[in-house]
């Protein structure tokens, strides 16, 4: 199970948060801060796994993250997920974003948080991996966007 997905930038500003378990807002912010603190002090050439985010999970949970330019993509997962698998999944997610936004950059995520959520919803659902095939994800996202557009033109 994936317990949480956090995207924040190099300064710890959240760009997308998605908890699959309920935390009150202040707790969520605290988790983001702590995770940022843990992740940001690591070099880029060290491994992408981190144990011991004490706020979230416990001994069974790991933080698996990737750092792209100005953004950190952090997944908090338990031991039923394959570490390397989740790393691949982050890659798939980012590539999907890249396709959907055409050369995605932090600004896209800042201004279109909702769209990023919609894309993520096609990848992970309720903490479980829904789809890993990028073409399938992109196709579904585009179909839904088209539907949205047709509704706008209906108006």
């Amino acid at each position, binding site marked *: 199970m994936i317990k949480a997905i956090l995207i924040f930038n190099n300064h710890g500003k959240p760009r997308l948060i998605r908890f699959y378990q309920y935390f009150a807002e202040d707790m969520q912010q605290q988790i983001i801060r702590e995770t940022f603190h843990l992740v940001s002090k690591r070099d880029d050439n060290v491994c992408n796994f981190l144990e011991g985010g004490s706020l979230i999970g416990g001994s069974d949970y790991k933080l698996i993250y990737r750092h792209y330019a100005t953004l950190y993509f952090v997944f908090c997962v338990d031991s039923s997920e394959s570490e390397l698998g989740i790393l691949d999944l982050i890659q798939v997610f980012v590539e999907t974003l890249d396709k959907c936004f055409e050369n995605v950059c932090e600004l896209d995520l800042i201004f279109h948080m*909702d769209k990023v959520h919609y894309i993520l919803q096609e990848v992970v659902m309720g903490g479980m991996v829904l789809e890993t095939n990028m073409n399938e994800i992109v196709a579904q996202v585009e179909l839904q966007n088209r539907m949205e557009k047709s509704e706008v033109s209906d108006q």
Partner: protein
Amino acid sequence: MALKIVKGSIDRMFDKNLQDLVRGIRNHKEDEAKYISTCIDEIKQELKQDNIAVKANAVCKLTYLQMLGYDVSWAAFNIVEVMSSSKFTYKRIGYLAASQCFHEGTDVIMLTTNQIRKDLSSPHQYDTGVALTGLSCFVTPDLARDLANDIMTLMSHTKPYIRKKAVLIMYKVFLKYPESLRPAFPRLKEKLEDPDPGVQSAAVNVICELARRNPKNYLSLAPLFFKLMTSSTNNWVLIKIIKLFGALTPLEPRLGKKLIEPLTNLIHSTSAMSLLYECVNTVIAVLISLSSGMPNHSASIQLCVQKLRILIEDSDQNLKYLGLLAMSKILKTHPKSVQSHKDLILQCLDDKDESIRLRALDLLYGMVSKKNLMEIVKKLMLHVDKAEGTTYRDELLTKIIDICSQSNYQYITNFEWYISILVELTRLEGTRHGHLIASQMLDVAIRVKAIRGFAVAQMATLLDNAHLLTGNTQRNGICEVLYAAAWICGEFSEHLEDPMQTLEAMLRPKVATLPGHIQAVYVQNAAKLFATVLRKHEGETDSHAAQETSQLLIDRLPLFVQSANLEVQERASCILQLVKYIQKLQQKKVEVAEEVTALFAGELNPVAPKAQKKVPVPEGLDLDAWINKPPSESESEDEKPKAVFAKEEPKHSRSRHTEVDEKELARRREARKREQANNPFYIKASPSSQKVYDAPGVEHIPVVQIDLSVPLKVPGMPMSDQYLKLEEERRQKEKAERKKEKKKKREKRGKERKADSGPESEEDIAPAHQVDIVTEEMPENALPSDDDDKDPNDPHKALDIDLDKPLADSEKLPVRTHRPEVLKSPAEDRVNESIPQETKKRSGKEKKEKKKGKEKDRKRSKEEKKKKKHKEVEEELLESHPEEAVQSEETKEAATPPTSTSAEEETAPSSAAAVDTSSAAAPESEPDEPKDAEPEDTKSSKHKKKKQKKEKEEKEKKKKKRHHHHHHHSNAGGEDSVQNGTVEEEEPLPPMSNYFLLAENSYIKMMKEDADQVYDIQGNHQDESKVVVSVIFENKSDSFLKSMEFNVLDSLNSKLQRPEGAGAHDSLTVPFQLPPGISNEAHFVFSVQSIVMPQKLKGTLTFIVKSDESSTHEKLDFKLHFTCTSYLITTPCYL
């Protein structure tokens, strides 16, 4: 229309959209909070508007603010509004917001059930998809129960997109509503073989999650998964399955054997590292679960280790990390195979990545042996020197100590070496672990007697060079070591070469800067040293030296007397006075050494922390016996004879207490022990007394006598030099020594092996066996129960459900009905206990069986009658009936038992009134028919009588009503079948499902029969319809209930039909009394003006509770609901 659009767009022009909000926040960096609060005010305005587009926009912005940490739950209702928009665009916004901020505590969630259900069954797949996605984030137990059936249907949706989402969300539904697991499981299993790989993967995902927590229930799926594993090419699916097998193998070793081969093949063939890694992991799990000794094991292990080595050698840090992680799993069972890769692991200690270094350290911990301990620790010491940053260095330090001290110093062959290591570690800058080193020093010095001489010498040096440790204020942590050093020097001062010098070192003015507790130890041990010095010089004619020592103390101690620390002050002044007195004696040439030494005489023995618990209770002492009489019954439960000390028989065994279960016992025992351990006044047995009780279980008490004479007497070892040199030199030296020692040891070992006598080789000294601290005394049964205690909050506990049992009829997902009350099964269950219900149930069963054969059924009903002590004549009569008569009768018979029993057993039949209607229709030969008809007919007829007219039509109607009455218990739509007697059996419903709780208190329970809102819509003489409400009254108390009066506050539309002449507010008397535990049914007729108006009527039941001593008047309020639909549903079709 056009105007509206224009208006809408104008509205929107003034609104900020999400982008504007984000931009605004970015432009107001200095007063962000203020800006956002104005934005929230705007959003609140927008939410008040009717335009859904505006609302959706506002909700979208709220979602963004939620991410920034703002609580937006106040807008939950607006979110629901947006969710229920018909437009996908808005719906999606609504569901997104809901999934971000709804949780089980959100109360508006219960408003969403129908909306979600609607969306789930929407013709547009994306509406369904969005609803599923949202639901997966905020599903509650109620939603899960209400929607389980809808979602299960979606699992067979035509679109794979929906199927996979429905499958995934089932996991959440199971968690929230565990009852759904069994009914839904067959379909879930089916989805494992779905043609769409996405759906298949989702199903595997869900089952893996389920199986991970309760693997044993899923063992039966192993063959299916095995098939999938060998056929699937989807790495995601493979990884999940392989992980699942890792969880299953410990339960079924045969599975493991089968797995090895395909897994090995995968390991060889796959190019995906993730898959390879999981394969290796599972192979390891298999190997762990299999009993060792199989020949081909070593090959598999070798393969794993080899592959892991490749991972560790990879330049990718992630692979390196995982390789080490997996390696540590192998280490637990096959340490030998890992040890050969020591070089690689040591290499990882140099890695720039801290996670990897820590992993490598973990591995080293398990890799040490007597042979390589020194070598490994030497490497680690090098790393300590090189390490940057105190955290990692501290980590290294604790690891070194852990590694050395593990299993009671099992791997240490030379304690002299270990002491030098500890001393070296004290040179660490700024470590926080001074106390750890100190406790190790104390432990070793106390427990390893033979090392004391060496230890004391080292400690004396340490004290001498204390300035090195304390010179820097940053090093505060390390001065803890001085505490140990001072104590060791004092306690074992007989080993000191030059106690005078040490004493001098301990009384330096600088000491006063140390923390108080350390000073206190200094002062106390200075006194011990003083005693030693005195004794040393006792025999000498020249008492100068001794007097000098006294003078030293008298000079220096006042410094400590002034200490702010009470402990230091107290000890110092006490000792100062003592020394002054001694000095006087010395001046008189009195020999005092012996007396002074006596102050500190006696050996301190180490006692295991848990030793106290192991002390057996002396014969005849019952610690649990009450000294005084127990205060009360309930409290005495707390204390009970226990079996801590095996054969101890409590003198006065209280047998009634034995029912307290083991867990509880263990818990109490544990609590008591904890209390004792923490209680300073609880006298702990002295070590010497332990020998007295030679009971089993005491021998492990660690009075360690380790005679470690061998290594210390290695000839040619310049021991004394060691602690005279400076730190740097010594380290060099020690290295050389260590090497030498090692050589020596090896030689020695070789010799000893041949000689097989003489002093034990270091290998065999192994203090471990004597200091067996670890194993005992978590009382055996306490541990598992502790684990259990952790679980109750784990939602997966509820999912520990046997899935292989065939589904019972009752196990169905709740299907949507107009009357969700049907779900209130607990209430039904309770009613079933009452007698009439039971019989009804029986009759229901009977009906089912009727399908099989009418003959059989007839016999059965006969039997029942026999039970009811009917005359045999009846049977004969019954059997002699012509076939068609039997036919029509049968329905009656089936219907008969309930009321007939209740009539016979509970209410004394006053059948006179009852004969009226039923006898006409019922065959004459049915002797129990009148009785059958009696109870409710009396009631209903009572009402009706008073309604002046008793036309035949009505009688017939009534009769039908009664039939209906009997039948709908098992068949809601049973009225039509009354006529022909066959149709009704086809769709049996669970019995009693029509009754639901109306009201209840401690005396009585009222159940309303739901489907019985039967009404004569065609009441031809009045212009109003009638509704008959059947109510079961159940006496729950031990008292007799009588004079029950039923009253309802009439509304304009619905009125309770009261006897003629009675006022509009008079109550109706319930025509029976209730003995304890009995229930009976009464009927009340309401006249209804309009059937298109739902009604809620308030009512009261008053009754007298009569017990032996007294009788009281009680009342119970209830509410009757008539929904419009209930007027319609069971309109009988008489043709």
